């Protein structure tokens, strides 16, 4: 697969997962949040898929940036700007690369993370999606450095995301709406972090199938 096909596949997986998990993600956001996370993501990615075929695919970077613009302009709540920024920054980091190396994917994820931190004025430890994104990127970097194949590296990354998302349960929220409940936010996982884990697991699964097929 070339870079455009790869990013297309990943974005599509994200969109499908967000739409299919609307209720689950919303329920997670209900515990100490306001319950709209699943709805916001699902509606936003539905809109992305509506215009899917018309998105500029000149190169992978452009494709990602265009997706980021749709997401940040059409998704409401905190998630629109946060996720949109992540896509925009990843697209910028990707540029017009024809093939995506493991190192490049790590760089794109790092760029997305930096974008979220800047946009959300948040950091690791605040009990947000960053608490899944950062550990999983760290793990991916390790795997890539150790010379692992794409499939194995992604599987390891998904495992790390799941573990990190589960671990947000013991954290106290310091950003986002959950933060208003203070200590009461302890005991339930962060909706955004869990969404990242579920999405990454999905990518890992479908990547295997896709890889087997292609």
């Amino acid at each position: 697969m070339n870079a455009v096909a790869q990013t297309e596949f990943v974005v599509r997986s994200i969109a499908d997962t967000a739409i299919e998990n609307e209720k689950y993600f919303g329920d997670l956001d209900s515990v100490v949040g306001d319950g709209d996370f699943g709805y916001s993501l699902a509606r936003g990615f539905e809109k992305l898929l509506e215009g899917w075929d018309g998105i500029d695919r000149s190169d992978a970077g452009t494709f990602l940036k265009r997706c980021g613009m749709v997401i940040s302009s059409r998704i409401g709540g905190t998630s629109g700007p946060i996720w949109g920024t992540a896509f925009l920054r990843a697209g910028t980091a990707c540029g017009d690369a024809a093939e995506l190396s493991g190192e490049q994917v790590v760089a794109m994820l790092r760029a997305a993370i930096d974008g979220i931190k800047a946009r959300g004025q948040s950091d690791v430890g605040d009990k947000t999606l960053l608490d899944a994104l950062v550990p999983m990127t760290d793990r991916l970097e390790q795997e890539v450095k150790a010379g692992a194949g794409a499939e194995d590296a992604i599987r390891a990354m998904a495992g790390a995301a799941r573990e990190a998302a589960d671990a947000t349960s013991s954290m106290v929220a310091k950003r986002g709406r959950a933060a208003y409940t203070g200590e009461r936010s302890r005991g339930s996982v962060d909706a955004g972090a869990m969404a990242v884990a579920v999405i990454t697991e999905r990518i890992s699964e479908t990547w295997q199938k896709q890889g087997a097929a292609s």
Partner: protein
Amino acid sequence: MKKFVNDPKQYVPEMLEGIALANPDTLKYVPAYNLIMRADAPNQNKVSIVQGSGSGHEPAHVMVVGKGMLDAACPGDVFAAPPMDYVYETAKLLKSDKGVLLLVNNYTGDRMAFDMGKEMAEAEGIRAEILTVNDDVAVQDSTYTVGRRGVAGNFFVIKAVGAASEQGADMDELLRIGNKVNDVTRTMGVALTACTPPAKGSTLFELGADEMEFGVGIHGEPGRERRQLKAADDIADDMLDAVVTDLPYNSGDRVALMINGLGGTPVSELYILYRRAHQRLADRGITVGRSYVNEYCTSLDMAGASLTLVRLDDEIEGLLTAPAEAAIRVF
């Protein structure tokens, strides 16, 4: 789900369409951006006043678009800040020579959408300013959050800048007035039941028969702490204590007192709370100069109420009592 709803995804658009049908002469509805605006806006001799926020707080804010109030409101979906696009397009449609004032309740999502929308509008030569409202005393530790939430006190900022803009005030003057009102406004809320977002179809959280949430915001999220349900007078006292001691409001002050229903509580109960709060303020030497007992900023069908105080001076009182029009028909 005990609601009048068709497809939950159409909850907000159908409500907005209803508002537009009910007010054909005074309001305009732009479906693409969830936008309700005055039919006669923008007025180039007046700063355009725009409020964005999630939906589910009605009559805030789509039903207080009108002369002397908002020029436009662009809500997002239920409890979700509007997408940046809506903010940007609204600013373009409301573009005025005197500028566009964007009123924002202090939440992460709203602030991001408005910051980004404002930047984009400015890039097209539109003068836009943001005024942030943060009146909720329930949020105590601001290092762990983006700071206090904007809740029902928001109404007073809208009313004041709405009136002043009608009288010709320029942007700097409106920012001064809006910030001044926000600075003397404090709110505390309590929920007796959780609300049911239409897309979720069930309550956001569970509350026992003898429990209440003290210190709730307006997005159906749980509050500062769960407490035992008490008598109305005791609840009024607790809300009042939290609010009065915060600014603080002192003996000799003249205030506006608002008891705001959160959606599921009938107005009869609001007056029971009002009675106690009014009497307790009098005990403290604080005079109620103007009273507000109604639903102003709700959380869908949540049973509950919030108490807001605004310290009045002649300027603020004049703006609060200035004539206005809203799409809420009392008679």
